[in-house]
């Protein structure tokens, strides 16, 4: 019952006029960012975080969460209308959304996407409200060793479940961690890795520099290459009759909604997964379980609902470990987590007792944001179509301006802007060669926290690494560590497993 009281408080917090205005503004920006090909929630949040420094943390998180949320809705718009995903999270929406648009039923696809997103968002927020307080209570008992073990597990999920080339994934994690060690050493106070004695390195590398570099500059370069500055759009007739028909078609998609909402939420909690794999998995499973699975790919509303439901659900799910454990569940929440540190908060379970207004304001705002985004999304479809006609050659320099100013503003130094350009270019090249970039962003955010937890644990244990593996002494830390080790060695067994199965089939 206590939860209901907190939740109502949270909803009232998010309905205060300043917060509500930011929420609606955030939803609009999110929808816009999501709809633009090449920009997704992670880009929007990374580029916008520097401007949240002057508003209170609660308002800032409500604004950024609304951007995150809106982008999940908006991604569908360009998937359907342009046939290119507006964000990586909307890749699976293209499979059936595009064929529907080609058939002339674009409005059906867009409505199905919006309603699917709404259902996924709502179910997951309810799950979130139920799960978060008990999980935070358990997490309150965590000390440094448990925290460090959790972070190792977060990194290990990228290796075990990320599906990318293993040495390249580990490289990405390690370079993020190494970059986070630049600057003054926590314990001894000695300067570390001050290249060419440039004083700019003394304050370390802010995670924002890497995040804006990779997700701002790097992403723009990537999209410029893909689109060559031009986009093609399919035709759309907007009338209320179509919207009505679209709602009628949604009756057949209840199974897709269920799968998307629940699967999305739990996949979203995993650090390596996030919304993109959640939506792909949801699409795949819905297709397999559907009675008319052959029609998938030719344009069925269920094929749009399943991934859209899942990506919204996953984005809420990824906030669960961020708030309760201080471990982000997706690249976007990694940046939000870094933002919390910049706003002067300590991410983790203590937030629930020390900053209830912040936590419950965020949770409450998710309920409100869901409603507003649904309404804005359907009402503003004609406006977004105009936005999609903006040539990329005009949008790109505007984004560059935002990146340069955003990279400069937090530390007021051009040094960081240069680094941001370097990271953007390097990130673009590495991404072209299939080096995953998300682990690096996650690890530069978690790096300082992980280092602190590691060193505190080692002080507790008089310098023995045994503290992480002793089941009788620290059972939770040990279990988490062993799970992490299993995840780390899992890819090694993949080929063996496949070989075994192949032999069985041929035999």
């Amino acid at each position, binding site marked *: 019952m206590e939860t209901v009281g907190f939740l109502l408080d949270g909803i009232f917090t998010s309905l205060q006029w300043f917060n509500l205005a930011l929420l609606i503004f955030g939803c609009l920006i999110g929808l816009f960012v999501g709809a633009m090909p090449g920009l997704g929630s992670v880009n929007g949040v990374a580029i916008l975080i520097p401007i949240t420094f002057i508003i209170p943390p609660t308002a800032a998180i409500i604004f950024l969460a609304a951007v995150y949320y809106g982008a999940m809705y908006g991604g569908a718009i360009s998937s359907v209308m342009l046939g290119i995903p507006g964000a990586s999270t909307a890749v699976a929406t293209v499979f059936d959304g595009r064929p529907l648009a080609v058939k002339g039923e674009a409005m059906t696809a867009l409505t199905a996407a919006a309603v699917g997103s709404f259902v996924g968002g709502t179910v997951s927020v309810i799950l979130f409200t139920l799960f978060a307080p008990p999980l935070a209570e358990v997490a309150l008992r965590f000390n440094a060793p448990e925290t460090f073990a959790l972070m190792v597990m977060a990194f290990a999920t990228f290796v075990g479940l990320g599906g990318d080339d293993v040495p390249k994934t580990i*490289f990405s994690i390690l*370079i993020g961690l190494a970059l986070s060690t630049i600057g003054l050493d926590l314990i001894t106070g000695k300067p570390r890795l001050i290249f060419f004695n440039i004083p700019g390195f003394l304050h370390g590398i802010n995670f924002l520099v890497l995040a804006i570099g990779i997700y701002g500059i790097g992403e723009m*370069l990537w999209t410029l*290459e893909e689109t060559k500055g031009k986009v093609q759009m399919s035709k759309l007739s907007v009338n209320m009759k179509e919207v009505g028909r679209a709602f009628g078609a949604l009756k057949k998609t209840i199974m897709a909604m269920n799968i998307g909402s629940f699967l999305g939420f739990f996949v979203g909690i995993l650090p390596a997964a996030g919304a993109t794999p959640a939506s792909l998995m949801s699409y795949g499973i819905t297709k397999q379980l559907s009675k008319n699975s052959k029609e998938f790919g030719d344009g069925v509303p269920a094929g749009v609902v399943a991934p859209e439901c899942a990506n919204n659900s996953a984005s809420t799910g990824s906030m669960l470990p961020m708030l309760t454990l201080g471990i982000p569940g997706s690249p976007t929440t990694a940046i939000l987590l870094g933002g919390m540190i910049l706003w002067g908060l300590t991410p983790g379970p203590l937030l629930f007792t020390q900053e209830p207004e912040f936590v419950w304001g965020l949770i409450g705002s998710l309920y409100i944001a869901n409603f507003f985004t649904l309404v804005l999304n359907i009402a503003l479809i004609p406006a977004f179509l105009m936005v999609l006609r903006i040539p990329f050659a005009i949008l790109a*320099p505007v984004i560059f301006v935002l990146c*340069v100013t955003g990279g400069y503003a937090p530390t*007021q130094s051009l040094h960081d802007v*240069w680094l941001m350009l370097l990271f953007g270019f390097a990130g673009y090249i590495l991404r072209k060669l299939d080096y995953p970039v998300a682990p690096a962003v996650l690890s530069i955010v978690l790096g300082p926290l992980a280092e602190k937890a590691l060193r505190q644990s080692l002080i507790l244990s008089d310098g023995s690494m045994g503290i992480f593996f002793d089941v009788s002494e620290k059972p939770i830390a040990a279990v988490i560590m062993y799970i992490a080790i299993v995840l780390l060695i899992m890819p090694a067994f993949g080929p063996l497993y496949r070989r075994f199965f192949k032999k069985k089939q041929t035999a």
Partner: protein
Amino acid sequence: MSITNKITVKRAEIAVAVILALCSIALMIKSAENRITWNAEENMGAGFLPFYLSLGMFICTILTIIKFVLKRSPQSKDDSPFIDAVAFKFIAVTIISLVVLVLAIGYLGIYFSLIFFLAFYLRYFSEKSISFITIFAITTPILTFLFFEWMLKIPLPQGVSEPLFYPVYDFMYGGFSFAVKMIFIILTVLLPTALVFLTSRFIK
């Protein structure tokens, strides 16, 4: 054969892996400037973590190189160009103009640099009219100024152009009423548009 065809995915993969391996070694050497040892009696040396992290990076790049030599990675068999010629032009011009932009910010200050950057970029890549580009290139820095310096109170670098902004600051922090300031803002945003519009009429 153009240069973009010569740089295949295969060549890029091995070149990048070797560069990353060299960078990892450089990081290891740099970390070793601090104490890199750690045992039960002594605290962890300041160089310990960076050293072993970069050692790990080095091992990963070596594994990538081994996979390449054994032709186990998809990139090691890929002879297609790393980037096609049209996209290369886009990327190269973008990167060079960004580098010039940041260089110029250090000297000219951000607002004037942005005008040149936007004007060049739009002229080069878009098919918009000169008057559109002029309005766009002038209005964007004005909005940036209003947003950062006025709303957020975050000063952006102004380089040699700083004295030009003194009167603006005097006005911003002077005792004018809110309404006067608002009218001023609206005028500064609209004025360039109106001017460009008028001149384009006259020139035609």
